[in-house]
């Protein structure tokens, strides 16, 4: 049986377009040191390091864990490198948790990062693949037609995406680490921003960020001795499906639905909207909030936009199920770290450590990440309660 594990330390960097003040090693070290400080631990207290990041072409360094072992205090210890596309930050956290849940390790450090300013993600995501049609579109171009199909099916109002773009930036303005700080943003400003990939406007897309996120995960004994409040991992799940196959449901992918069902079952969640206090969900393009509200069972199919428009997902409007109180991916997107930031922010909420974007009394929260052609999913549920 899996053993209990909990997040006992969280560290993040400030997210911004270019962290010219640090090297890649400096960036991951900053997040890792912050996590150790949060847990009141030192490098010697760590048994293994699990590193995650998106494609190596984003920085042009092959298997950077080899170079980063010194910066992460890992010499003489086990180092593993996870890569599952955009979901990688979440998958890395789940793999890291398994080091402890297996009983093989007592306390580990997990780190994920992206230094997007070192390269050009649009290029790295779109370079021609042998034997495949060349899709020179980047992520936004890939997802736009799927979003249009969602709008057609659900009859959602044209401004549901605009509402998400504003809501997440207003949340981000409460998070000093968020890349975009837009406390004055309005619906009109988003609507007037240039159209990039119909129906996605510039302000409905995530930024390109440099940044890293780290967590210390410990077993039950050590978590109980930890000076801060632990975030107990109550469930963790991953699912994958192919990019393309006949009859694939791309708007509401089965892999996402199955993954959610699995993680809810582990955590004893019957009704996610009622049983969770908040959620950090991977929304890199505005319309993915209503789409994931449906995919993850927070709303009936075709009704996700109604939750968004009603303010149910807004912390500032007093919604009953705030999504992305940290500002989400729409406010900060160091790609390889973005999934782990969701998982870590969920932990911070149930630890009561989320600062100005804290949901009052949050006990149970969900972290979510997805990647590839919306085909790779990782999710976890953390709680202030052990059982």
């Amino acid at each position, binding site marked *: 049986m899996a053993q209990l594990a909990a997040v006992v330390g969280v560290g993040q960097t400030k997210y911004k377009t270019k962290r010219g003040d640090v*090297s890649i090693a400096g960036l991951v070290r900053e997040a890792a040191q912050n996590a150790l400080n949060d847990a009141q631990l030192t490098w010697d207290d760590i048994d293994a390091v699990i590193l995650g990041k998106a494609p190596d072409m984003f920085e042009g360094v092959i298997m950077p864990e*080899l170079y980063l072992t010194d910066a992460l205090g890992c*010499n003489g210890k086990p180092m593993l490198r996870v890569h599952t596309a955009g979901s990688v930050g979440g998958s890395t956290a789940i793999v890291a948790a398994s080091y402890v849940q297996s*009983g093989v390790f007592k306390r580990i450090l997990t780190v994920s990062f992206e230094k997007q300013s070192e390269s050009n993600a649009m290029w790295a995501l779109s370079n021609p693949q042998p034997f495949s049609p060349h899709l020179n579109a980047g992520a936004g171009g890939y997802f736009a037609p799927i979003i249009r199909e969602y709008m057609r099916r659900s009859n959602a109002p044209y401004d549901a995406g605009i509402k998400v773009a504003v809501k997440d930036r207003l949340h981000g303005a409460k998070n000093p680490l968020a890349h975009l700080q837009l406390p004055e943003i309005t619906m009109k400003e988003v609507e007037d921003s240039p159209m990039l990939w119909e129906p996605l406007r510039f302000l409905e897309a995530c930024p390109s960020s440099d940044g890293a996120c780290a967590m210390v995960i410990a077993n039950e004994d050590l978590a109980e001795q930890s000076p801060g409040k632990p975030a107990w991992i109550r469930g963790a799940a991953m*699912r994958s499906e192919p990019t393309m196959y006949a009859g694939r449901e791309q708007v509401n992918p089965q892999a996402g639905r199955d993954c959610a069902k699995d993680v809810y079952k582990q955590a004893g969640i019957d009704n996610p909207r009622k049983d969770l206090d908040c959620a950090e969900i991977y929304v890199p393009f505005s319309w993915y909030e209503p789409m994931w509200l449906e995919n993850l069972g927070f709303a009936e199919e075709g009704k996700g936009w109604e939750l968004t428009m009603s303010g149910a997902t807004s912390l500032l409007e007093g919604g009953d199920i705030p999504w992305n109180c940290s500002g989400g991916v729409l406010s900060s997107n160091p790609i390889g770290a973005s999934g782990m930031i969701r998982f870590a922010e969920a932990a911070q909420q149930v630890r009561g450590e989320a600062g100005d974007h804290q949901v009052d009394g949050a006990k149970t929260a969900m972290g979510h990440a997805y990647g590839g052609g919306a085909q790779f999913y990782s999710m976890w549920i953390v709680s202030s309660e052990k059982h």
Partner: protein
Amino acid sequence: MRDVAIVAFAQSDCVRDAGARNEVELIMPVLQEVYKQTGINSAQDVDFTCSGSCDYQQGAAFAFVAGVDALGAVPPIKESHVEMDAAWALYESWLKIQMGQAESALIYGFGKSSPGELPIVLSQQLDPYYLAPLWVDTIAFAAMQARVMLEQGLITEAEMAEVVARSRKNAANNPHAQLKGDVSVDELLAEPEYESPLRRHDCCPISDGACAMIICTVEKAKEWGKPYAVIKGIDHRIETHHIGSRDLTQSISTKQAAEAAGVAQGPVDIAELYAPFSHQEIILRRALNLSDDTKVNPSGGVLAGNVMMASGLSRIGEVAMRLINGEGKRGVAHATSGPCLQQNLVTVLEAQ
């Protein structure tokens, strides 16, 4: 830790250039082979799937995404990927079984190095600020390591040639090997130097290919009714990236992993060592403290064929299959990553 059974293993031939075959076409045959060995139909019949590959070999982001197309992942499956040799994908799967979240797992690794110049490509694995701009390739680093060993009198060129001659001879019985044959130490020493002191034959060849494995709990192996070998211990360690801070004549991280995996707890009949350069086999034999009774690299090892991202898992598969076939009772498999054996994984296996 509970024992974990290896019930199936398959590897492709090591070929210098797989031509127009893409990743899916490299993976499919080895997957089919392990399904057949296990008596199952697809990845749907195991609880977890994990792969190892490296985008830079193919020269495009997300090499592993195409791999998912080979799995029949409809309905969706529980799946993960390491940007490492698939030996570490095995490690991730082993943890899943230890924590009770899976009873069985499919692991595969693949690499198509032929589209690029592998030694130069791998130079971009180095510290991007201080080392990568120098474009020091893998062979140059290995040559420096061999030079240090020769100058300290820790090896001789004849000992290096003996490693190669044994590899070529053992590979004669390995249908997947790329380089094989009878060649004497004297003939090898008569060859010109390539990157001094290394001769071409001291360096592993560059290969395209794939391998796959199925592991499970011992209970599941019995249910499947297939012969199996068990993983008794597995551990991996990394050491500093900075070559100048390391004693290149030994492999500290291999010693640490061997200690944790329990290599010394019994005699070792068979060892498969991931030594891309002849002198590194000697370093590894010493780090693992193998006696003269141990049969080292009966497959020919990676000097006979080296599919980057699959070779480490193949070392484990080679030992497991030999134990299942009764060639020994206890074996050790080793995998490596990074310049001059920076990161190492050691597995201890036993026959049943």
